């Protein structure tokens, strides 16, 4: 990692190319996942407690609540909140 940083320092053009490539790939991956119908963060918030309990019971959430799963694959904030909620259920289970 340090060597990469040093190379980038001496080669600003290469660094810009790498950044542009990373940005382009990120955009293209988002476009690849884009669907006409997607849930908003608010809609996912309403459903995520149900989703996390289904998941904790070992049910197939991709089949049961595909739009929630899709949103979590695209939205970092909602994914973090889902992960914290899942952690909360594990803690509750172990008390």
């Amino acid at each position, binding site marked *: 990692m340090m060597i990469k940083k040093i190379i980038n320092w001496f080669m600003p053009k290469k660094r810009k190319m790498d950044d542009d*490539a990373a940005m382009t790939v*990120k955009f293209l991956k988002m476009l690849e996942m884009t669907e006409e119908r997607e849930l908003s*963060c608010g809609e996912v918030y309403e459903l995520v407690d149900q989703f996390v309990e289904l998941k904790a019971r070992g049910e197939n959430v991709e089949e049961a609540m595909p739009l929630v799963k899709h949103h979590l694959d695209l939205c970092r904030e909602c994914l*973090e*909140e889902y992960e914290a909620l899942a952690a909360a259920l594990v803690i509750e289970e172990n008390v």
Partner: protein
Amino acid sequence: MRYNCAMQINRDNETWLADLRAEGAEKEAALDDLHIVLLRVLPSALSRWLPTTSSHFETFIEDTAQETILRVLDRLDTFQGRSKFTTWVYKIGVNIGLGQLRLRKWQEVSLDGLEEGSQPDEMPSERFASPNPSPEGMLERKNVIEMVQQVMKEELTPHQHKVMMAVAVQGTPLNVVAERIGSNRNALYKLIHDARLRLKRRLEREGLSPADLLAVFNE
């Protein structure tokens, strides 16, 4: 149906709702129990985002628990019983806690600076793009990068472009951007969704798919 012991509080959903809607001792007991379950769960659930060793940790957890209780009381009538009551409460707690942590973390960062100067947020794509392409591969990548930038310039409004760069590329949280520009998380998600759809449709009109273009970075 409830019983308390030193470490365990078991109430069913109906009991939580009835006691929190009651007055006097029943309500006080339910509020105390709510506080206990939140303080039991929130520290571990949120420790990934704020280390337990932080000097602010205890205050942060207490503040989050208090705010969660207020919001739970305020929204009690919206609980529809699709999950356990406590799961619904934890959902509100992590939303409040993580929202606060994001605002604190990003409060010094300017969105204009993000758009223009910073490097992209760490992303899976860094593992996706192969590091040493051939000269032909380099040229092909350069062409795709320029084409995508051109399409974005032509299809997106300056506002959509700015929000897309801040959220999707630099990883600025939606609620942070929303607060800066006087919007909300739902509206921003919709704005970004509309922008993604526009870009995807434009590529389709050009006879291209994101998967085909991504393949150029995987060679």
